[in-house]
């Protein structure tokens, strides 16, 4: 699985309350989450995520189990997220909804082209290829299917 997008650099320890605030959770309308993603961090960010790859610090997605955090990023057009580490529930949620996560510590420059290849195991944020922590075969299969719902539809 390959992909590319423009870099958006964010700090470490971004929690799921910051990705999508609790006040927007009571709906099934996914466009609401895309519209308000990162609102408490930077109100201008939501509109700039189409085709973006978020390059962030450690522990991205810590806090609550809300799957809406991963969905909000995907709905807003985020191609993938690169971080040295992810909070584990966010990690599972993102894979389960078909949002690629890339575990790597890499430099980031806003707007620069980021490319990656999950099967080959590298990411390039403009300074050369960095090795990434491999995903399990099951996670790759879920991502390839487009998420866990599609994965189980195929399996049944």
């Amino acid at each position, binding site marked *: 699985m390959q992909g590319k997008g423009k870099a958006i650099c964010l700090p470490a*320890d971004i*929690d799921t*309350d*910051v990705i999508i*605030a*609790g*006040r927007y*959770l*009571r*709906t*099934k309308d996914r466009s609401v989450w895309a519209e308000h993603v990162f609102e*408490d961090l930077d109100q201008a960010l939501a509109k700039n995520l189409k085709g973006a790859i978020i390059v962030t610090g*450690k*522990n991205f997605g*810590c*806090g*609550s*189990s*809300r*799957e*809406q955090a*991963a969905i909000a990023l995907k709905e807003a057009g985020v191609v993938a997220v690169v971080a040295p*580490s*992810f*909070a*584990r*529930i966010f990690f*599972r*949620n993102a894979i*389960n*909804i078909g949002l690629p996560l890339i575990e790597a510590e890499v430099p980031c420059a806003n707007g620069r082209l980021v490319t990656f290849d999950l099967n080959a195991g590298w990411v390039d944020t403009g300074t050369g290829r960095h090795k990434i922590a491999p995903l*399990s075969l*099951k996670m790759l299969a879920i991502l390839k299917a487009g*998420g*866990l*719902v599609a994965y*189980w*539809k195929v399996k*049944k």
Partner: protein
Amino acid sequence: MGTLSERILGAPAGTYVDHRVDRAFAHDGTGVLTLESYRQMGAKGLFDPSRIHVIFDHIAPANNSVTATLQHELREFATSSFLNFSDIGGGICHQCMSEGVVLPREVVVGADSHSCTLGAFGAFATGVGATDMAAIWLTGETWFRVPETIGIRLTGSLTGTAEAKDLALTIVSRLGMDGATYKALEYIGDGAKTLSMDDRLTVCNLAVETGAKTGMFYADEVTIEYLKTFGITTEPQAPNQAVYEQELEIDLGSIAPVIAVPPRVDAVQPVHELAGLTLDQVFVGTCTNGRYSDLVRFAKIVKGKKVAVRTIVVPASQAVLAEAIRTGVLADIAEAGCVIGTPGCGPCLGAHMGVLGEGEVCLSTANRNFKNRMGVGGEIYLASVATAAASALEGEITEPEAF
């Protein structure tokens, strides 16, 4: 012999396993998306409804008609599917599951990040999101990466006004917000045996604030006696001979009342360093500190006095509420001028029953103090029940020793 995680999941750390889930639960927040994903998977029926729980706690009762409609749909499904359903006021999912449901050695998965709370029973208990839960409804199992484990070796016993919450916050500050990401915590040593089940539930509750997959105590005589009160007979878990990736030693006698300063749970300071900070609200409750023993401790401090700031007390479950009514503890709390809320999560997640206004400061016994969590522009300081009680009486952050 391995760590508790290795023993329960049956494989060494680092291995990916597919494993049966003994107990699966979702709440009104995560349940809505779980049901949606479950239906999209084309499911014809639940794998085993007797192992599945749906518990309404996050916005219970509903705060508006949008929430009510979402809950209505989930309630209809829950009551027609023969699964275990707990409606509004029944209590917080983790508390309900701790009242004679979860047993040692079980694999327990909740669609809520604080599901690690139930590791207090010597179960492998962890949180997932909605779609993972939908797949568990469908198949009765899920995948895990067997975690490496950090051993938290406890010695001595808690003294003075220090509580399990102060210990839990101290552990978070020592490990940091991501100190145990992808890993498990095991609380071991002679000090662990001195902690009650309620204490253990509080300590395990905050495991996720270090990034941990779960936090676990070995089931011992304390666990066995607790489960006996629910008519359950079970065996203790053999003492560990595990080799830990890392060990942290904590003398319980050195634990003092502390506070986590917003917006980080690992930004922990002694209470006296923040004494005098003016409060707009005090909140006592949640899956961290809303149990009967918490209400007793709170009542002891405020009984016969009046709180100086608006104070919301929310019992963690209907059973806790009923017990507090029976023993008069609730009357002491009400007569001190506190507001009593419906058993559930209360204002912890900023949805209802005590949301903060811009610039307001709350001292809370909950587990998260993230930016805007309890309301836009509000600030949350996290502390023990005794610190909350002392501070409620003064209207400002106050060390419990003062009483």
